[in-house]
């Protein structure tokens, strides 16, 4: 007869005793062949950033078109404040210091938190943009954690932090456009 706790300890102990070795899926030559395929994380992140920018432009244009086509005083009344200006025109190209980046991120995060969690009616394109951006932010977060754990050079961390800020800014723009479109319905 075992209590639940005893069983849990037994299972935990057996888990720790399980062997770790498994036959590797392929040998060194196949590993090298696959390694030469260019699909790696960094290009994917760059592709993601380009995709996110394109989606932001698309959604913002859609929201603007909707607002111009059907002006409504209710939209103005319910529309949220514009997101904080994370970048000025020259900021996107010039490097920034870490405290500045963190302050800008905190501002954008606070603004995002102030928005309603999700509009009543959602557009597939907009949701896809939001999901993609959130996904990219999570990936950069993971990468940042890994780099910090491995004591990566500060310049590398700063570049990742800057990239994260750009993604957060894009997310704020998409969410703003989405909320405006929702309010104008």
């Amino acid at each position, binding site marked *: *007869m*075992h*209590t*639940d*706790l005893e*069983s*849990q300890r*037994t*299972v*935990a102990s*057996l*888990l*720790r*005793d*399980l*062997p*770790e*070795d*498994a*036959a*590797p*899926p*392929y040998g*060194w030559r196949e*590993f090298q062949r*696959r*390694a030469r395929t260019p699909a*790696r*994380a960094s290009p994917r992140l760059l592709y993601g950033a380009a995709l996110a920018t394109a989606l932001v432009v698309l959604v913002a244009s859609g929201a603007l078109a909707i607002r111009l086509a059907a002006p409504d005083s209710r939209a103005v009344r319910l529309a949220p404040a514009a997101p904080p200006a994370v970048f000025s025109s020259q900021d996107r190209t010039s490097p920034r210091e870490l405290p500045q980046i963190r302050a800008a991120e905190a501002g954008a995060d606070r603004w995002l938190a102030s928005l309603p969690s999700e509009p009543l009616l959602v557009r597939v394109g907009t949701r896809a943009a939001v*999901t993609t951006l*959130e*996904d990219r932010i*999570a*990936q950069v977060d*993971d990468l940042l*954690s*890994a780099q910090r*754990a*491995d*004591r*990566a050079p500060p310049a590398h961390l700063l570049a990742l932090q800057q990239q994260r800020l750009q993604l957060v800014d894009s997310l704020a723009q998409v969410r703003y456009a989405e909320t405006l479109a929702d309010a104008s319905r």
Partner: protein
Amino acid sequence: MTRLSEIGVAAELRARACAGDEAARAEIYAALAPATFGLIRRLIGRRAAAEDVFQETMMTCFERLAEFRAEAPLGAWLRQIALSRCFMYLRHPWRRARLCLESAADAAAPAGLALVTTGIAPEALDLERALATLTPTARAVVWMYEVEGYSHAEIAGAFGRSVSFSKSQLARAHARLRAWYEPEEARQPCTPI
């Protein structure tokens, strides 16, 4: 039995690998790949996905080998990379959505899933089979907590979820593992009724 975190590599071999010596790299790959793939396969479950994560992990290992400070065995360092890659995979929104669907069909999980390791003792075989029936998230949580020694807060942070998510996943995983491992009539609750 070899644990990944205990596998070390001679400094001279590592130096040759860092200098681009193919033979040295192949030797390191041969030493680390089995345990690395075993760990990843156990956490990810699906073989095709595990192969992708394994490939990325090993590539990262060789790309950043020069940054390894030799404060612990090379296997322990690689283990951190592998775990980080597994979490990235499990946290991906598309996969999370798919895992939600899978957890709905959780109860009907097939019993005869492919085992991660082969040629193990019969008493461990049941547990290995039971592990294979868990969802990837539950399997990762129970493995991280019970074997890797992560706290609930650390697991929650890694998954970007709450501490109660980690606790409930662990409790459900244990319930399923016990149900498999121990007949119901042999169990007795902690609190006498």
